[in-house]
């Protein structure tokens, strides 16, 4: 019978059993619960964090909080100068990176190849940037791992994304033939529209394969303007001040009439299609792995409580013999399971939010695909704690019930 009296007596018994149980056994069970909790939260959190890492790269390195790009019918942002000037006057704007983009090709072996040798040539996306503004926006200079970033007065210099370089690339793919024997200082031939120019590789970036910068070629904007023969930009990435609402900012730009000249999108609207699906897929994989961990924890608790109840079968018989209700005895085991789960999850929470989340946030795990962080939103964590506690209670209750249901006298006398 579910009554307060049974709960009270069950709690009384549980507290005393826990207080006088082996500290080693208790610590071991709590440790298992702690690992289970971390498994539940961290595995999914890291998998989601990989996708967050990818999307974060897009935000930090390319899109910002709001992105302005050409209308579908145009190749560039009309009235770029006025649009840029207007944006820079808005108080919620932290930084703006205006860029030119153009498709072209880059050839590596044009100086050394023999007549019948195949040109080592690849298609590229060239990005013309203001080196100082771009570095202020995305910190691109810190990503240069070989060579150097642009310096004042640089001319005929490019910085390459790693996927364009043979030794860093995943390999050939349609439209991309990684360049061989290209190092800082190597001369390469840039073709853009009808113009061909010999340029020097100033530096090579070190970014994960999924970074938006991985396959780009950067060049100071003044030279790109010359090559493409126009002054209107193709992209304006806007980073907002902390606390500013990107949706409200987008709406402000649209109300100001910029929508007539360009497409205005928040970061969420502009990230590539499929990223959300990838995120959901990773979360599902994480949940599947975590479920296995949960089942293992449930079995562990079941075995622990079952052995505990089995070795105490005589005392369970005595309890029933002196008139303690079966429900109160069952509650005592439920409370013990609850204790293990709550303490394990509590320690897990301390480790999670006290160490793992801030540490991995500050030092993302470097993976080939992206830099992963640990994503553990409080509602998701609360749900997982509830799941762990519920599973543990069931795993504790079932074996206790099995033993309590046995014949009282058989239990007291240790008969089967």
């Amino acid at each position, binding site marked *: *019978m579910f009554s307060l009296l049974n709960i*009270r007596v069950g709690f*009384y018994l549980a507290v*005393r059993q826990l207080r*006088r149980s082996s500290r080693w056994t208790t610590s071991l069970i709590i440790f298992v619960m702690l690992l289970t909790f971390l498994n539940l939260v961290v595995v999914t959190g890291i998998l989601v964090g990989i996708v967050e890492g990818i999307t974060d790269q897009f935000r930090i390195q390319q899109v910002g909080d709001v992105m302005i790009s050409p209308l579908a019918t145009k190749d560039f942002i009309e009235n770029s100068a006025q649009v840029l000037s207007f944006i820079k006057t808005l108080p919620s704007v932290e930084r703006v990176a205006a860029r030119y983009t153009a498709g072209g090709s880059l050839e590596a072996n044009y100086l050394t190849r023999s007549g019948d040798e195949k040109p080592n040539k690849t298609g590229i996306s060239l990005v013309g940037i203001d080196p100082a503004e771009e570095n202020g926006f995305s910190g691109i200079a810190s990503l240069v791992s070989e060579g150097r970033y642009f310096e004042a007065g640089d001319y005929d210099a490019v910085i390459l994304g790693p996927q364009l370089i043979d030794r860093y690339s995943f390999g050939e793919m349609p439209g991309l033939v990684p360049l061989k024997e290209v190092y800082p200082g190597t001369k390469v031939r840039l073709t853009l529209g009808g113009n061909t120019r010999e340029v020097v590789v100033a530096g090579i970036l070190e970014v994960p394969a999924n970074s938006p910068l991985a396959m780009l070629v950067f060049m100071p904007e003044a030279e790109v303007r010359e090559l493409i023969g126009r002054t209107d930009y193709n992209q304006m990435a806007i980073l907002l001040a902390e606390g500013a609402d990107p949706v409200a900012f987008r709406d402000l730009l649209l109300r100001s009439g910029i929508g007539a000249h360009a497409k205005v999108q928040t970061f969420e609207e502009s990230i590539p299609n499929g990223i959300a699906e990838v995120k959901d897929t990773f979360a599902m994989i994480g949940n599947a792995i975590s479920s296995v961990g949960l089942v293992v924890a449930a079995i562990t608790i079941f075995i622990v409580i079952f052995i505990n109840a089995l070795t105490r079968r005589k*005392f369970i018989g005595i309890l029933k013999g*002196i008139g303690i*209700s079966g429900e109160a005895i069952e509650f005592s085991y439920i409370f013990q399971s609850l204790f293990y789960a709550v303490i394990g999850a509590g320690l897990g929470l301390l480790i999670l939010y006290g160490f793992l989340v801030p540490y991995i946030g500050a030092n993302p795990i470097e993976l080939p695909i992206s830099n992963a962080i640990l994503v553990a939103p409080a509602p998701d964590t609360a749900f997982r704690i509830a799941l762990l506690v519920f599973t543990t209670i069931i795993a504790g209750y079932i074996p206790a019930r099995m033993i309590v249901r046995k014949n*009282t006298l058989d239990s007291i006398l240790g008969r089967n």
Partner: protein
Amino acid sequence: MIEVKNLVKTYVNGPIETHVLRGIDLKVTDGEWVAIMGRSGAGKSTLLYQMSLLDEPTDGLVVIDGREVHTLSEQEKMRFRLYTFGYVFQDYALLPDLTALENVALPLLMEAMEPAQAAGKAKTALERVGLSHRLGNLPSELSGGEQQRASIARAIAERPAILFADEPTANLDRESSNVIMKLFKELHREGQTIVMVTHEDEYAAAAGRVVHLDDGRIVSEKANV
């Protein structure tokens, strides 16, 4: 009053049937002290278990104060064991994780008594059996005699209608056994109904009546003067 009518207990193990009780008729009136004796395997403990609702008879009736108790639900039997009976077992049957005080207080808590009141009653019962200095000790820290006295304190803390004792002195030395029997005599003088299984004539002699069992049957009954 307890009345046992044609009580039969048979254990079946595959094709083997063991007849432990073969039709017992016995009455124990209120305030009476009955000692059940017999050689090993005579069925004396089995009879006690049937009378005290710890086991189910194969046949026959156990009637307590006019109620046929083996037809009660498990819940009602639990309440009977809690409110009406007190138990003293041969191996003391104390709970190892509970102190002497907690062991005695536990059934009182199950009776919905407030913790402070239960602790007070438990303390009084333990003082009565001479364990006022051992309230906070675990059973493992008590001698055999002290454990049995704690067990008696648990059984009598709430003045049960019937006290069942299964060989309460079997595991004790002579000195401790005498202390236990002295306690039983005091309880009996106060009107406590006692049903005690023993194989020692000396202690059975303290009871008001001695029932001898052999091969599952009562072979003799003798009132002590």
